[in-house]
């Protein structure tokens, strides 16, 4: 056998072996999960728990995931998918089964952009009426994580601000910061103009109430920003969320959005039990632990479940 054909044969054999094992491995792999299953467009036996790409949502998803696993449900985690605009089509077709949601934002961004429902019960009723047939919401928790118009303590004191309405005389000197989609969301710039007549000097696309937004606010790059109300840096960075008397930002209770065909009574009762015990105070505490103290998502999630006597 000539040297060159030996090389070819060796190379080919190696190549086939490598490709085959890689292919097998790829089919089976996924993010840290209790079981693995490739994502499919139809409901599968494995429950896929998704999350948006910010820490609080990953934490909530982790809580759901741990509790459901403890109850014997096969779960796959698919966290940090992106913003609602990316993951909503995926859960609608069942590629994702459960995702922690905020009822108000869900309603106005993806279900009914014209809805003016503001209270928890009104928002939930509107959702129940208008969600596509494959989706449903389970019971809401009392925990709320709302968008807000937030300023620094110093700015609030200097201009005697307690509510969004008081921003009107200052609007031409305000650069407003928020996530990119704030420009097109109905409760974003559009809502602020509608309810408070506000047109800011400029909009800066930043992130989801994350480090970029907070830095911009603290550094004065923006004078007001969309900061979520359970952001722990509100405390440590001395920020103030302005009151929203016209309810531009509707109720934002944390609740599970689920793909109906995949629901079982175990899943529903477990998730409802979690929602019953989830309060804003508890959520803020957990957020502080995870974001500021760099605790593990799973450790904090487990701590919450155990403390509340939930399955873990």
């Amino acid at each position: 056998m000539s040297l060159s054909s030996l090389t070819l044969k060796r190379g080919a054999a190696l190549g086939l072996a490598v490709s085959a094992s890689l292919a097998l491995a790829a089919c089976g792999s996924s993010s840290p999960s209790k079981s693995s299953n490739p994502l499919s467009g139809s409901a599968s036996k494995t429950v896929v728990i998704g999350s948006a790409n910010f820490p609080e949502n990953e934490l909530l998803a982790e809580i759901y995931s741990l509790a459901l696993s403890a109850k014997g449900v096969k779960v796959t985690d698919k966290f940090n998918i992106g913003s609602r605009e990316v993951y909503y089509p995926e859960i609608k077709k069942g590629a994702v089964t459960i995702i922690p949601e905020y009822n108000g934002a869900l309603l106005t961004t993806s279900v009914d952009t014209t809805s003016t429902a503001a209270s928890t019960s009104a928002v939930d009723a509107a959702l129940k009426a208008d969600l596509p047939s494959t989706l449903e919401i389970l019971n809401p928790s009392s925990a709320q994580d709302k968008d807000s118009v937030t300023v620094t303590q110093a700015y609030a004191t200097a201009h005697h601000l307690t509510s969004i309405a008081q921003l009107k005389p200052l609007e031409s000197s305000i650069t407003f910061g928020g996530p990119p989609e704030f420009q097109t969301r109905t409760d974003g710039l559009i809502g602020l103009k509608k309810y408070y007549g506000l047109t800011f000097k400029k909009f800066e696309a930043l992130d989801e109430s994350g480090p970029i937004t907070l830095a911009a606010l603290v550094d004065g790059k923006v004078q007001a920003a969309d900061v979520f109300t359970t952001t722990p840096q509100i405390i440590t960075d001395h920020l103030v969320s302005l009151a929203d008397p016209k309810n531009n930002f509707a109720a934002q209770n944390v609740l599970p959005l689920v793909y109906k065909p995949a629901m079982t009574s175990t899943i529903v009762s477990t998730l409802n039990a979690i929602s019953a015990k989830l309060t804003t105070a508890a959520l803020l505490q957990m957020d502080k632990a995870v974001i500021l103290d760099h605790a593990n998502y799973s450790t904090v999630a487990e701590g919450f479940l155990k403390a509340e006597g939930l399955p873990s």
Partner: protein
Amino acid sequence: MSFLQFAWDWLKSSSQWSGPDGIPIRVLQHLGYTALSVLIAAVIALPIGLLIGHYRRGGFAAVNVANVWRAIPTLGLLILMVVLLGFSALTWLIPLVVLAIPPILVNTYEGVAGVDEDLKDAARGMGMTQWQVLWKVELPVAIPLIMLGLRTSAIFVVATATIAAEIGLGGLGRYIIDGLASNNYGEVAGGAVVIVVLALAVQVIFVGLRRLVVPTGLREQARASR
């Protein structure tokens, strides 16, 4: 709707072409980031490449280091810079310069090291000093490869500067990040098309530059040996 259809619809709309978020401004921003990064990378990499190519030392090491360099994930480096430096010009500049260095370094080294020994002997025989050999013989012969390195580097940076938008920067990556966040595929597709066109334009510019800079004799030689 196909990718191109999305892109076309978005590009057609005149609002994309004016204002601070308009395509012309973003293109200029993007070009600015690219040009500055490649320039600084060239200032660093060209001298080093020339020296190690001339003395034929450390070439093996340089090539392998450049390969490892490519392993550094730009996204990670960008984020590290933000965490360490906050939001300053250096934050995006350092990762892009880091990305731009390997092609310039490797090409310069290869270009200079690959110069025919006979040529160098002849030059030394004519009484040229080391410096003169480098400057008058090796550099001109190496120019095609050096230009290729600069061109490759520029294209890498144009494509990668899009990620800088993830940390709040401007440039054409904004269309992709913002479009991604609001499920506006038109914006994503349109932004991508503009970036590709820009990258191709950069290629064309370099081809033109090559015509200007590469000695005619070399160009002819290259053509003949194809």
